[in-house]
């Protein structure tokens, strides 16, 4: 494997046990950093607003992203559209730390994802199941997250994706060696990745939870289900007291297995984002890009 791919996987290892927060302004980025975020995702509109506004959603203005890069010392990520390698090239040119090839934006290609091995900067991609995760890794993604359903504040899809992925991993672990070829065929992924999961019981890259996380309890739930860290999009800056909620979610990820601490953290956080139930939404972003 190339050195660069390994270094990029290793940056994701450094983010583990942390919270990556969506921010739209340098001011929000500073609040996120001070609250203990391990990275920020710079974007013009948070998913809840993208969902509300409708229309085509694209990569953010590089000037806006640069403003956030200057405001904080933690890693800065940004999103490009699925398959839009030119947007990715632009993000690489401004030395972004991680690119999220994201279903939150309108897909630019309904067949091909970006050939991420062509890039020096790392990519994180969303996945609903093990097959999607391994296909993205094969394309060069060095970090995976659940897709969840962004901008809803409803955790059900992230739970569904994480549970499915973990159960498929356990299934591969339990297989006989000679069953792995057929598994690779069914999952539509290369044999060597299937073999890695069979031997190690996990993905070859870090796996975070994303989509619908709104409370410390949501974050703890995802960590207990096997996430190695958490993305919080609309959940923080769409809530009544972003600063306090951000700090509480950061600490909930560290102490995800300690109900007494989680109870304390969940107190008095003000209004959570209102949220929309899965059944009330028309656009399922998780269905974009398979």
């Amino acid at each position: 494997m190339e050195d660069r791919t390994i270094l990029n996987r290793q940056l994701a290892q450094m983010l583990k046990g942390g919270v990556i927060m969506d921010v739209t302004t340098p001011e929000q980025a500073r609040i996120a950093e001070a609250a203990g975020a391990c990275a920020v995702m710079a974007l013009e509109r948070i998913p809840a607003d993208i969902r509300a506004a409708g229309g085509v959603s694209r990569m953010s203005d590089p000037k806006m992203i640069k403003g956030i890069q200057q405001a904080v010392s933690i890693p800065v990520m940004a999103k490009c559209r699925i398959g839009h390698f030119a947007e990715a090239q632009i993000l690489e040119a401004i030395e972004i730390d991680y690119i999220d090839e994201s279903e939150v934006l309108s897909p630019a290609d309904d067949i091909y994802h970006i050939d991420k091995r062509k890039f020096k900067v790392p990519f994180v991609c969303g996945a609903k199941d093990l097959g999607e995760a391994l296909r993205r890794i094969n394309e060069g993604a060095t970090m995976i997250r659940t897709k969840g359903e962004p901008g809803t504040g409803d955790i059900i899809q992230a739970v569904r994706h994480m549970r499915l992925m973990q159960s498929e991993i356990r299934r591969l672990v339990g297989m006989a060696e000679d069953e792995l070829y057929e598994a690779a065929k069914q999952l539509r992924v290369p044999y060597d990745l299937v073999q890695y999961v069979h031997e190690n019981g996990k993905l070859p890259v870090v796996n975070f939870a994303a989509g619908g996380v709104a409370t410390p309890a949501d974050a703890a739930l995802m960590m207990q289900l096997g996430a190695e860290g958490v993305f919080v999009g609309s959940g923080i800056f769409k809530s009544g007291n972003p600063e306090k909620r951000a700090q509480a979610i950061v600490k909930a990820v560290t102490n995800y297995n300690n109900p007494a601490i989680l109870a304390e953290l969940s107190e008095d956080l003000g209004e959570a984002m209102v949220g929309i139930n899965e059944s009330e939404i028309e656009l399922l972003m998780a269905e974009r890009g398979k």
Partner: protein
Amino acid sequence: MIAILALQGAFAEHELMLQRLGAETRLIRNLEDWNKTLPLKGVGRSGLVIPGGESTSMMRIMKDEGLFEPIREAILGGLPVLGTCAGLIMLDRNHLGVMDILAKRNAYGRQLGSFNAEEEFKGIGNVPMTFIRAPYIEEAGPDVEILATVDGKIVAARQANTLVTAFHPELTDDTRIHELFLSML
């Protein structure tokens, strides 16, 4: 018993490597965990590892959880500590203040500046070094022993019971730096 600060970052990698070397480890996520490992503050064969991750994130949780003072006191009291990358930053003058060094954060720039090297480490020989958005030491006091440099910048140092590296020995298969740390207990 090695306590590994597990507030955020790559603590599991240290845990694996130390267990491979036969050390007993305990993850410290909060003050209660720290207090349960109180006996290790009596020095003896105990140590503390502060892993790589984001130093701002770890600092924030450390202060809010009331871990900052007890950890600082234990190290000043002689508890051997290994700090890697963010862990190096945490031990410098501007953070825990237990080592007479000044760390330059993100000294090699953003992720595109991350790199691998192999350089001489004093007393060990050539070791592989992985730098991820790494710091280096820009100032070191007279009591600090410089253990390794890359391109003229200090990337590993020791002062009494403290050992720091700007790179990540826990990400390679080379166990010699962890062995050095265990020999300090």
